[in-house]
């Protein structure tokens, strides 16, 4: 189980390590730069400093995961993940500040087609129903085999793969994970639709929609597997790795699609980007805008609807206490 944890951790840390490669060439640490800036001394120095910092944390994290006593494995896992994300965030922000003087002043003009044709979702959007069907099928399966479900069964596993929370054969115990999974999938669907209708028309918009739908499948599959585990006795490592089978190719695909430079950068004002990551522009009606760090879209935090969506997420997470056994 430790090796599985290390593999997942390494993959996550490798993604943070590769951040400078995941952006179009005219963006570096969310700063608009000339396309050949990466080859300049300042560009190479910024990238190598960022990578060295992440590499040190990555190696330290693997050592900690391998050497940590079994009792402390849960805490160690949380700490190493937090460390890699925090270091990545701080280092990214630091490089963003350092490169700010190299910012290219690009045109802020936008050209728009005057069409009143209603916005239509792409045909593949119907795939968003899939995860709900998976959860529904799992519920049906559990209902039909109710008598075969053990009276008490594991519901949550610690980092070492040992069960650390149990549930009983009750409506909450059996269907709770499915309800929670449906809630998470519904939130992702709302985000996908808000992203489609609340952002500017561009090719990346379809990629974002596809990514959110794929995210729904990951969550739907994960919670369906957890729910049917007492009946089928699925090993915990399968539950942990099965969603990864979707998640890893998805992330790689998204990064490839998003980093393909097409057309000019969305001309959002430089001064509205806080640390290159947070966008706050009360004069922009868009709810979502293309990010400058190569990771898809982000909220326009000046738009009240973005806070409503975050509140919905907070409510969904908080509801776990009442829905999950």
């Amino acid at each position, binding site marked *: 189980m430790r090796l599985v944890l290390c593999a997942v951790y390494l993959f996550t840390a490798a993604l943070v390590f590769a951040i400078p490669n995941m952006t179009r060439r005219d963006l570096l640490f969310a700063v608009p730069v000339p396309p050949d800036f990466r080859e300049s001394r300042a560009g190479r120095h910024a990238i190598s400093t960022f990578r060295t910092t992440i590499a040190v944390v990555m190696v330290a994290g693997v050592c900690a995961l391998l050497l940590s006593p079994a009792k402390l494995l849960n805490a160690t896992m949380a700490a190493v993940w937090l460390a890699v994300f925090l270091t990545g965030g701080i280092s990214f922000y630091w490089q963003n500040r350092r490169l700010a003087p190299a910012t290219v002043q690009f045109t802020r003009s936008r050209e*728009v*087609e*005057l069409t009143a044709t209603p916005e239509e979702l792409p045909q593949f959007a119907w795939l968003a129903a899939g995860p709900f069907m998976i959860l529904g099928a799992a519920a049906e399966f559990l209902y039909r085999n109710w008598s075969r479900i053990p009276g008490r069964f594991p519901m949550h596993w610690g980092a070492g793969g040992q069960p650390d929370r149990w549930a009983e054969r009750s409506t909450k115990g059996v269907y709770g994970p499915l309800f929670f999974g449906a809630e998470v999938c519904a939130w992702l669907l709302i985000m996908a639709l808000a992203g489609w209708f609340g952002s*500017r028309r561009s090719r990346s918009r379809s990629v974002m929609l596809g990514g959110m739908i794929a995210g729904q499948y990951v969550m739907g599959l994960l919670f369906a597997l957890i729910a049917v585990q007492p009946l089928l006795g699925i090993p915990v490592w399968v539950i942990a790795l099965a969603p990864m089978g979707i998640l890893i190719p998805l992330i790689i695909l998204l990064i490839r699609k998003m980093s393909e430079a097409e057309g000019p950068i969305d*001309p959002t004002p430089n001064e509205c980007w806080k640390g290159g990551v947070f966008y706050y522009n009360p004069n922009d009606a868009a709810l979502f805008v293309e990010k400058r760090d190569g990771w898809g879209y982000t909220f326009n935090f000046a738009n009240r609807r973005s806070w409503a969506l975050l509140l919905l997420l907070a409510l969904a997470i908080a509801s776990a206490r009442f829905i999950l056994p």
Partner: protein
Amino acid sequence: MAQYPRIRVDLASGVPAVRQIVENLRVLLVEGQLFPGTALPSVRRLAVELGVHFNTVAEAYRQLAAEGWLDLKHGRGAVVVPRVVSPVRNKAWAEDFRNRLRGMVAGMRSQGISAARIATELRAMAKAVTRS
């Protein structure tokens, strides 16, 4: 695929976005690229696409509606309507027009554009106006 008229707004220019939208749309209306019956994008959609506030687009539509170009119906968006204009009888319009042109020419020249180039553009414009 159908080609739709386009408008361009430069948010870095000193000209307020609402004025740019009104002027862009008015050009398309006068040139007939937007004709009676044409539905314009909703305020929300146009604001998102241009990266401006909803109120900016709403104000631009209101100004054009006040000039008689658009019909704003709640829930239906903005639709171009036939516009009947009685000729201006006041002679002061010519003076006002010349003053505005002079101001624009001065602005162009202050940006380093040669007088010959400006004259060429004005001649081309005059030809286009005569044709329409």
